[in-house]
């Protein structure tokens, strides 16, 4: 990926989001410093129109940056934030013009999505298992038709995932919920945006894990030679290379757009294809690394833990394959023509 955006993103993330920083944030350190360093270069508004002081880039153009975010396993929902800000800007300009929470413009800080497991009632709003719920500043949540932009600073937060997870159960009082309501939407707004964010992050993190695995296979010696010289490992690593290439291609396809918005069918393809790759990529990475790979001090686990979580978050391979499969079954074309016209935007033959 020879691209200026990619190179500068790789440089920036490599400098400010080191494994040490990830460990600190997983340990509960404040995220404000990391976010100020990440946002100083103005990536956050990459997808906003120029009229909103954005860079007016397309999803296709920011794809390399999003991929790089996955490679560095940023412990903040940065990819989510880019898409959330573009969604908010559009909603503010149309349906949500009167929303109190947007009176001062788009919010400062990071934004994640909660499209599933959100419950609203007299006691307020509860969102369970929110992806990056521990480190996000805001949550765009939807329950039935109601959509909120909720501040995590005013939420009760409980970690919801396994060791080192950044996911959380969040709840807000009725007063906060009322002040945070953006409006009513007939369709689910955030399923695709969360799935796209995660698909691209998976592709990036899988690329990183593969790179580490290859490096280790060439470095670690047993029986007097690097373990990568053994055919048993070569066969597995080659298979994983195919899965990593496939995941990256699927994520790149989902970012094909001339606007900030993804095509829903491509999101389904990408989340399904990237998520199904994770189990094998992670298993082989750990098999090659041996016992050192599961230790706290070794960096591999920073990426493989995240891959396992992201694969099932926001709907996993089964869910998104089902979404795509429904479209195939409801269409009336051959498999090739469905793929060509719906996923490659080619004209009918």
């Amino acid at each position, binding site marked *: 990926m020879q691209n200026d955006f990619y190179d500068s993103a790789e440089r920036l993330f490599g400098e400010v989001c080191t494994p040490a920083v990830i460990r600190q944030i997983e340990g509960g350190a404040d995220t404000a410093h990391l976010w100020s360093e990440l946002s100083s270069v103005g990536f956050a508004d990459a997808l906003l129109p120029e009229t909103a002081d954005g860079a007016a880039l397309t999803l296709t153009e920011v794809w390399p940056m999003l991929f790089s975010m996955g490679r560095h396993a940023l412990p903040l929902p940065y990819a989510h934030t880019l898409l959330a800000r573009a969604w908010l800007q559009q909603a503010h300009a149309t349906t949500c013009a009167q929303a109190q929470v947007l009176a001062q413009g788009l919010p400062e800080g990071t934004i994640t999505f909660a499209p599933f497991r959100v419950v609203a009632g007299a006691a307020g709003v509860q969102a369970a298992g929110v992806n990056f719920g521990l480190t996000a500043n805001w949550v765009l949540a939807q329950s039935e038709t109601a959509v909120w932009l909720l501040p995590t600073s005013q939420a009760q937060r409980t970690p919801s995932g396994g060791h080192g997870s950044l996911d959380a159960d969040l709840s807000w009082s009725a007063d906060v919920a009322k002040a945070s309501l953006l409006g009513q939407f007939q369709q689910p707004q955030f399923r695709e945006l969360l799935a796209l964010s995660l698909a691209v992050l998976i592709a990036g993190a899988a690329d990183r894990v593969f790179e580490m695995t290859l490096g280790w296979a060439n470095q670690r010696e047993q029986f007097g030679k690097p373990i990568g010289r053994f055919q048993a490992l070569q066969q597995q690593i*080659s298979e994983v290379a195919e899965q990593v290439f496939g995941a990256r*291609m699927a994520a790149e396809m989902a970012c094909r757009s001339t606007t900030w918005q993804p095509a829903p069918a491509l999101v389904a393809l990408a989340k399904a294809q990237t998520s199904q790759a994770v189990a094998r990529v992670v298993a082989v990475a750990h098999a090659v690394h041996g016992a050192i790979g599961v230790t706290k001090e070794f960096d591999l686990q920073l990426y493989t833990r995240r891959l396992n979580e992201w694969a099932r978050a926001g709907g996993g391979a089964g869910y998104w*394959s089902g979404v795509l499969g429904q479209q195939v079954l409801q269409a009336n074309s051959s498999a090739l023509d469905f793929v060509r016209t719906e996923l*490659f935007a080619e004209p009918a033959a």
Partner: protein
Amino acid sequence: MLTALEFNQVPAQEAAFRSEIRQFLNEALVGMPSHAKARSWMGTSDDFSKKLAKQGWLGLTIPKEYGGSGKGFFSRFVLSEELLASGAPVASHWIADRQSGPLLLRYGTEAQRQFYIPRICRGEAFFCIGMSEPSSGSDLASIRSRAQRTEAGWLLNGSKIWTTNAHGCHYMIALVRTSGETSDRQKGLSQVIIDLSLPGVTVRPITDMAGDAHFSEVFFDNVNLGADALVGTEGQGWDQVNAELAFERSGPERIYSSIALLDCWIDALRAQAIQDAETSALVGAMVAEMATLRALSLAVTQKLVDGESPAIDASVVKDFGTDFEQRLISNIAAWLGTHPEFIASPDLLQTLGYLEQMGATFSLRGGTREILRGIIARGLGLR
């Protein structure tokens, strides 16, 4: 070294060409059952190949001066994709068109080009590839067939096996030893063209477990070849073969071998209004993977357009693709087992039966899974 494969579209100007091919195929293949389509590029029809030649669709990328159409790699991708996805019986001309023509164009003498290539483009010269021998499968460098220099040319002795459609071809381009011993491995190997009608050549079709005969065994008993039988440089056969295999491995052949089954099954699901979550998820997973593979294959095509020789990338796509083709078969078979009340037509079951039986060859032909993964590992710097 293996570098990233970037997404690219089929160029928009190919759309009209695709429509033209589709219209032709709709007429030419009307009423063809799925189990016949499943033969795909193992299905043989000299008549169909000649019809394609009349359309100007053999030798698509060959320059016009040699009787080709002078089109680009993306046109070829579109044509191959349409032929494979429709299950057209292309085996008669497939190897000549895909490998032998480009090989002769690259390494042949001017006289060889003038003689063979226009015949290939007219559908009058079908080629097969002589690589494997009874004792040389994956270990191709151990071949023993030998061509010895004579005053008039070469004297050929030995045999080849698993040669696709040799019994339906006019010529074979074979990898044989022209100097040294078997222990010299890759050194001393050369490629020669053999007219299969010559005295001393015996072709014996091999009947496979599905009842077809796609492969043959070919014996050479003191076959006299002319001096002009040598293709390219004497002793450079190994490198030439590897360049040729990059062509073989880079096309959409390795995505669509089981597509007749996928289409047949999806049509049956639609007809019986089956849309449950588990079934939808299986349909979606297969389509997502097929689309991803198509994009990877197009990325390899772009590398060919850019003048690269993407041998390792092509191995990635081929190995990934054959795995998909085989999993498609086992997944649909397993799905049928989970749904004993499903009304499976005889055509669906015959399609499945054929692919279950011959699907094992998908990861053998053109380099086994294990050989390809070894090539990928080398590209990754592990060997």
